[in-house]
């Protein structure tokens, strides 16, 4: 396994007087899909926000390619090759999906249309994003991320709200990104998607992360104790 491209190390974070993260560690390795699982409120989103500089930790550091990033910002990391998909919609409601692709991928329609086709978003390319369903919107956001050809893809619940066919497509896209040597790190609750997609698994419990080795051979309640036996 190669060295991590993006890592959050020894992260402490308190929110509203509550200790959310305690010496937490997570990383994204080129050529692999890494999943971060944990119960709702475990701190997955907080950890991702710290990774992209949208939240400041009380202690710890973010590292890119082994070197500390003193003041991480999403735009700065994006220029290095990061794509971040948060757990809420982030496209401009007044623009069409095609407008977004044209903005993100210069070089004409030929440069991004194959990606849009592979993820099945061509049916609504000319519709305004504001009128898309939740699933269509999420799939468009992910297709845009794939079209950016990121070195690191950081995705907060990418499968949420997707129908089975679209879940298959997203899983395929994540695998394809990793096959192209991108480092994929995503947070999810969905065991099925983790089993089908992930190569590595971090579990987040009581503010602390743990790399679960050979997770496919272990029952899910051993991944994190919140899961029913």
């Amino acid at each position: 396994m190669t060295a991590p491209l993006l890592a959050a190390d020894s992260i402490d974070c308190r929110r509203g007087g509550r200790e959310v993260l305690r010496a937490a560690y997570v990383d994204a390795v080129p050529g692999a899909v890494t999943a971060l699982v944990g119960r709702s409120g475990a701190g997955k989103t907080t950890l991702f926000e710290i990774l992209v500089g949208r939240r400041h930790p009380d202690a710890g550091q973010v590292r890119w390619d082994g070197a500390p990033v003193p003041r991480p910002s999403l735009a700065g990391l994006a220029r290095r090759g990061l794509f971040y998909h948060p757990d809420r919609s982030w496209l401009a409601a007044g623009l069409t999906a095609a407008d977004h692709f044209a903005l993100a991928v210069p070089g004409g329609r030929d440069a991004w249309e194959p990606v849009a086709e592979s993820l099945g978003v061509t049916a609504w390319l000319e519709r305004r994003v504001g009128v898309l369903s939740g699933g269509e919107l999420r799939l468009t956001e992910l297709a845009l991320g794939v079209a950016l050809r990121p070195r690191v893809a950081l995705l907060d619940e990418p499968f949420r709200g997707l129908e089975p066919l679209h879940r298959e497509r997203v899983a395929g896209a994540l695998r394809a990104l990793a096959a192209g040597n991108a480092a994929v790190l995503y947070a999810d609750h969905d065991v099925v998607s983790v089993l089908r997609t992930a190569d590595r698994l971090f579990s987040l419990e009581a503010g602390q992360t743990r790399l679960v080795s050979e997770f496919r051979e272990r029952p899910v309640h051993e991944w994190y104790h919140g899961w029913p036996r």
Partner: protein
Amino acid sequence: MRLTVSVWLRSPLFRSYLRGFFLLWILVKGTNAFLAGVVGLPPLGFRPGTEVIACAIELLALGAFIQRDAEDILLANLGLPLWTALAPLLPVHFALSLLLSVFA
């Protein structure tokens, strides 16, 4: 940088921000003209200090709307920080105010 300045300035997203900024400029200019009239100053005169404050208010308001809709994440994913993306609107404010003061 993933997004070049020329692509950004010609994009429909920048045009939509320009429209929003123009509406905010009208709103702030109207308020400013009313207050100037109350204290006996030329309502549409160009006063640099006031223009700087008015421009800051307009940019902050537009930035707040963009952040509310999480579109700053879209910009950042394209390698463009929010305030860099909005910087081209700065001369727009001063050009509009100056033109208005000339023709008033």
